[in-house]
């Protein structure tokens, strides 16, 4: 007889706990979401520079591996040059739009 209400209480407690966890996570993340995203973007830009360095005339010993990544990064490259205020791709060998 007492099992059903007890399960209900446990359920409610679990839900409460889950929402408290979510609230706490939001409390941690939300003020710095933008800052962290920007820092991450800067890191990604640096990585992209490595991947496309041969196209810019900078010799890259890891080209054999980074070449494979170029198509994957193409979309992000487009985002990058529009963000930098260039309507079209600045690289002759790379026409993304």
């Amino acid at each position: 007889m007492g099992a059903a209400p007890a399960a209900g209480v446990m359920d409610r407690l679990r839900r409460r706990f889950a929402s408290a966890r979510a609230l706490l996570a939001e409390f941690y993340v939300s003020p710095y979401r933008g800052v962290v995203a920007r820092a991450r973007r800067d890191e990604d830009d640096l990585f992209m520079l490595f991947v496309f360095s041969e196209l810019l005339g900078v010799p890259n010993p890891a080209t054999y591996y980074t070449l494979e990544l170029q198509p994957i990064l193409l979309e992000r490259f487009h985002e990058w040059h529009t963000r930098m205020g260039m309507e079209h791709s600045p690289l002759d060998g790379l026409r993304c739009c």
Partner: protein
Amino acid sequence: MNATFLAILGLGAMFAGYQFYSKFIAEKIYRLDPKFETPSHSMRDDVDYVPTNRVVLWGHHFTAVAGAAPIIGPAIAIIWGWVPAFLWVVLGTIFFAGVHDFGAIWASVRNRARSVGALTGDVVSHRSRTLFMIVIFLLLLMVNAVFGVAIAQEFIAMPSSVIPVWSAVAVAIVIGVLIYRMGVHIFWPTVIGTIILYAVIYLGEIVPITLPAEMFGLQAGAQWILILFLYAGIASMLPVWLLLQPRDYINGIQLFVGLGLLYGAVLLASPTIVAPAFNAAAGDLGAPPIIPLLFVTIACGAISGFHGLVGSGTTSKQLDKETDARFVGVLGSFGEGSLALVTIIAVSAGFASLADWQAMYSSFGRGGIGAFVEGGGNIVASVGVPLAFGKTLLTVMAVLFAGTTMDAGVRLQRYIIQEWGVIYNISLLQNGYVATVVAVGSCLVLAFGAGGADGSGGMIIWPLFGTTNQLLAGLTLLVISVILVRLGRPSRYTMVPMVFVMTMSFLAALHQLWSLYTTGQYLLVFLDLLIIVAAVFVMLEAASALMRERRARPVAVPITAE
């Protein structure tokens, strides 16, 4: 008088202010619209612009604006007696800070979440935007210098706080790494981190740390100041996720724990106020005239321009519904007011007798964090917490608030210097390391310049800091008033506070100019002159902008979409 009564009276008044006054402002003046599409929706990018739960947002806004300043200010200003401090904190919070913080969020939300600085450029004039930058830089410079000095003083007064304070940095870094490098959920790091933070206080008592009284001709205070700024410089260069974010978070938790502990202790112990209601002897103790100095000594806790920066910088980008602005803005400032209120109680009822109180307040500027720790520690001790533990705990709390502000402040100063490097084409200043060295160096010059080689007199700049903060508040209130005039709505609810804080900060700056000149503090005289010039320009800008608006009033300028 009983302190419980004072606490209930103050909190009750603030609550009534929220219920009635801010409701009136929300409905009749700012006219919040639940259907208005806020920037968090219209410009949503899930990075900066994200609709956020109003309780979470309030938590951020509150913890971002409340810190060491609402503790230091009232703890100094009590020298004039508790009644003036109490009245200014409670009435200021309701009629000044509430309207100001709320208004900054509202104005920003109605203008694509632009910051008050940018709005000043749009609404008032381009000149005033430059002015705004200068005032902010001065504010950061002073807050960093003052907090550096205040922390150094506390480290010397309470050697048991040294280990807990530096452990908090380690705890923060561990939390940052756990969350971003290991993908751990925040819940357990929070629980364990908080437990460690309080457990380490015991360790601090067993192993108190003191620096040698003199090393390389530097006294202990000066050594601490150098160490602190070295740390702040390094900390401000570290990635945000590694230190600043978890540190801010721990601080927020600390704030809630500390407020709960203090109010709980006050209610349980119900101490009696021993400080005089009005202290006629304040003048003999070297305190400046209460008018205008009270209104700049207590800036945060009554009204503070810094809140407008937070409200229009980050809060407005995350506001889900426009009607949430009242909850977040007004209750955020009331949260800070409640911290100032409990500080007033700690420094007026936390002493056994009037003689003890007078011994603490033997001269102006002697209070500060020390008095808060002493009084608060006594109150907490009367409900069973060991006195030494309670005092260390309160010291750690206040120092962590100040330390986090310093970390963030040095970082912001660096950004401003780098921006100046870009504007004026000085490539050297654009370098992050150079800009940090310039930022830290300017703070050190001020910290030592104000108090001599031992860095002990840094508290002299406290009222100057308050003056600058109020100037910023005046600028924000000006922006809100101009917008209200343009909309053809009553502007007296923001205009009267604006005229009041501008007048008080201007008079205070003039008074300080004289006293600094006669004591030969020429560096501070120069700083004060800068503030006075800025204040004059702000007032001229205010007058010209408002005159222009009054003349143009029949023509509705579409500044805000209604």
